[in-house]
């Protein structure tokens, strides 16, 4: 089976590619890259005006299966990923039961095989049941295919266990993904501590609660030698800590979500919109600026969504009772294109680094790229396509998106995984 994608601007800084060219795909691999290609038989598609990049990956998603299939399941989550332009996702372990044994890892991988073409990778829990008390069976999960470990949703509170985990996990050469939140300081917090907590009479969640754990985990990373990846970083000071660690040559990386890049506490207004309730919370405008700058300069390695679907009836509760989180798979690319690429602050090359290459490199999984012989995992973007978030529905089962109603410019139209279309002309297959 052969496919010829003609006339797209093909961008891959890893292979010093950024020009209009044709790409031929055969048997799931990139067969040829060059001008005026032709194929004897197969499908030829005109991609002029589009931007073709190595397949994007979101290394932070909650697919809710097993256990909370009313919010999302593996099938709907993988379709949402395709719709958003992603070829691959990393599923977080806070399912029910928790993904803390090899058999649950196996279950998730098997379910994904019955779903659309989006690739799934699995993160296992650090602690049994995410209780933060004792190590989960990390080696068992590794053997079953897990590629990273995290108690995401909670920070590991016990510093002794955090150290033990990093010491243990480094034997598998997998990174620890760290959700940074010292619960003694966040307590019952639901919004950033400061202007918004004061104005709305809501319990505050101080930036220091995140920054203290970032500093702690960097120190533990140095102590143990384990690779450390800071999840959903939100503050200027957190970014500074990562910058210092990188300058010292430590194996530390971090990710940022689109909502923390582009939204801030001023978006949590007296309408008490629960789609703006996140963990960690939306911070300040100054933090937005620092995060965007750090994404450009590479201090932040990855854009990841923390896709956190919740049912409508859960988000319709009082702000203090509603669950944390928003969906992100279907809006991340549009947000980054609209607010950074089209603004001229982030290049397509940088977008490819942060959304395709860096996540795979950090997780030590098979790289993608626009190079002959590599897997045909590609994302094709229509950079001019204007759309209103939510106006044409969702592939996700949930609609709790923080960008609802905003106008975006640019969207993925086609996604190929191993040469198979998971989305074609905006329609997920």
């Amino acid at each position, binding site marked *: 089976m052969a496919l010829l994608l003609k006339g797209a601007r093909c961008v891959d800084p890893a292979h010093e590619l950024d020009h209009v060219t044709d790409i031929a795909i055969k048997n799931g691999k990139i067969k040829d890259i060059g001008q005026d290609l032709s194929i004897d038989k197969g499908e030829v598609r005109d991609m002029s005006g589009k931007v073709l990049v190595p397949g994007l990956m979101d290394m932070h998603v909650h697919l809710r299966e097993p256990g909370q299939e009313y919010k999302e399941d593996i099938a709907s989550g993988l379709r949402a990923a395709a719709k958003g332009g992603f070829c691959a996702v990393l599923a977080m372990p806070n399912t029910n039961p928790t993904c803390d044994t090899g058999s649950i890892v196996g279950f998730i991988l098997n379910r994904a095989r019955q779903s659309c073409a989006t690739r799934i990778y699995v993160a296992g829990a650090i602690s049994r049941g995410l209780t933060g008390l004792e190590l989960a069976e990390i080696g068992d999960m590794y053997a079953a295919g897990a590629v990273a470990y995290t108690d995401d949703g909670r920070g590991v509170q016990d510093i002794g266990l955090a150290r033990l985990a990093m010491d243990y996990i480094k034997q598998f050469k997998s990174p620890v993904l760290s959700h940074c939140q010292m619960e003694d300081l966040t*307590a019952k917090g639901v919004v950033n*501590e*400061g*202007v918004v*907590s*004061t*104005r*709305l*009479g*809501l*319990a*505050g969640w*101080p930036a220091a609660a995140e920054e203290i754990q970032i500093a702690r985990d960097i120190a533990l990373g140095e102590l143990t030698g384990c690779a450390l990846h800071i999840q959903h970083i939100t503050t200027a000071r957190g970014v500074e800590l990562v910058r210092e660690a990188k300058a010292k040559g430590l194996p530390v990386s971090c990710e940022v979500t689109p909502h923390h890049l582009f939204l801030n506490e001023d978006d949590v207004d*007296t*309408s*008490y919109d629960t789609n703006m309730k996140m963990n960690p919370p939306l911070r300040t405008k100054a933090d937005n600026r620092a995060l965007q700058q750090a994404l450009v300069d590479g201090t932040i390695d990855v854009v990841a969504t923390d896709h956190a679907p919740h049912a409508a*009836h859960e988000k*319709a*509760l*009082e*702000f*203090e*009772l509603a669950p944390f989180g928003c969906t992100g798979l279907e809006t991340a690319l549009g947000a980054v294109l609209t607010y950074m690429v089209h603004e001229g602050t982030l290049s397509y090359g940088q977008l490819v680094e942060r959304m395709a290459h860096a996540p795979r490199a950090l997780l030590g999984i098979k790289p993608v790229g626009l190079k002959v012989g590599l897997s045909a995992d590609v994302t094709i973007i229509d950079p001019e396509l204007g759309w209103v978030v939510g106006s044409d529905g969702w592939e996700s089962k949930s609609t709790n998106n923080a960008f609802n109603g905003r106008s975006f410019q640019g969207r993925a139209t086609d996604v190929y995984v191993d040469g198979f279309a998971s989305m074609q002309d905006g329609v997920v297959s």
Partner: protein
Amino acid sequence: MGGLSSRHLLEIEALNSRDIDTIITTAQSFKEVNERVIKKLPTLRGRTVVNLFLEPSTRTRTSFELAAKRLSADAINMSGSALATVKGESLVDTAKTLDAMDCDLVVLRHAYAGSPHILARTMRARVINAGDGKHQHPTQTLLDLFTMRQHFGRIEGLNVGIVGDVAHSRVAGSLLPALAIMGASATVIAPPTLLPARPDVLGAHVCTDLDSILPELDVVYMLRVQQERLGRSPFPSLREYAQLFGINSQRLATLKDEAIIMHPGPVNRGVELSSAAVDTAKNLLLYQVSAGVAVRMALMYLLLGGEEDGFAA
């Protein structure tokens, strides 16, 4: 009658200074009615007011109930324990149920900030916030403003000190923005552990030394120490709190002649106020209670009075 610029009273910022003047002026006439032998007016006859109190409250609920009954409205009280909410019904569904019964006004007291917005979005009825979590208590604020206006003849330019647990106080949450709207000066006086993260956002100056500021204040507004709400205590002991931030006889003597003490009640005698400071003529807390009924009558009248259908006349 001018009415108000807002359909609901969800938070104090919905009102401008003209609205607040209108409410105070209207409340003055209702206060006279309340001092008569026959206290009932036919104004809201046939209208239905639901007091939806999902958090325990006696004085506020009683005040609203009296206000509605004195205006001849049919007042229904629904309290948390009697409600479906304890059986797992959501606030949205409770609101839809009440809406289906054609209520005209819902007065909501709830433990969660912003909950009146959920009602206002879901129902046709007007909504009054009777206290939402740690956010605001706007009708308390209106009766406080009424009290200040009656005593000083003005609100603008008054120097108001709010003493105590500002961080957890919905009373302060609405009083502070209201004082800014009315052009008064506000200072919060408390240990830092009882202050919100950014008092400046609410227009407040900050002082941690009560004795230094007391002689300058026109209004000393004492907040209740909410012992039931605090987890790990934000101050070492009630004794130390009373020493540093309580009003006692010595401190009473340092007040300006015309200064007043206010308190939203109920008082912890011997903590924020000594008995002498409760019982002094300077303390207007019972006047506040009385003003509360009149102000709530005024608010109900202004929110519902303009809306009459064909049968009413």
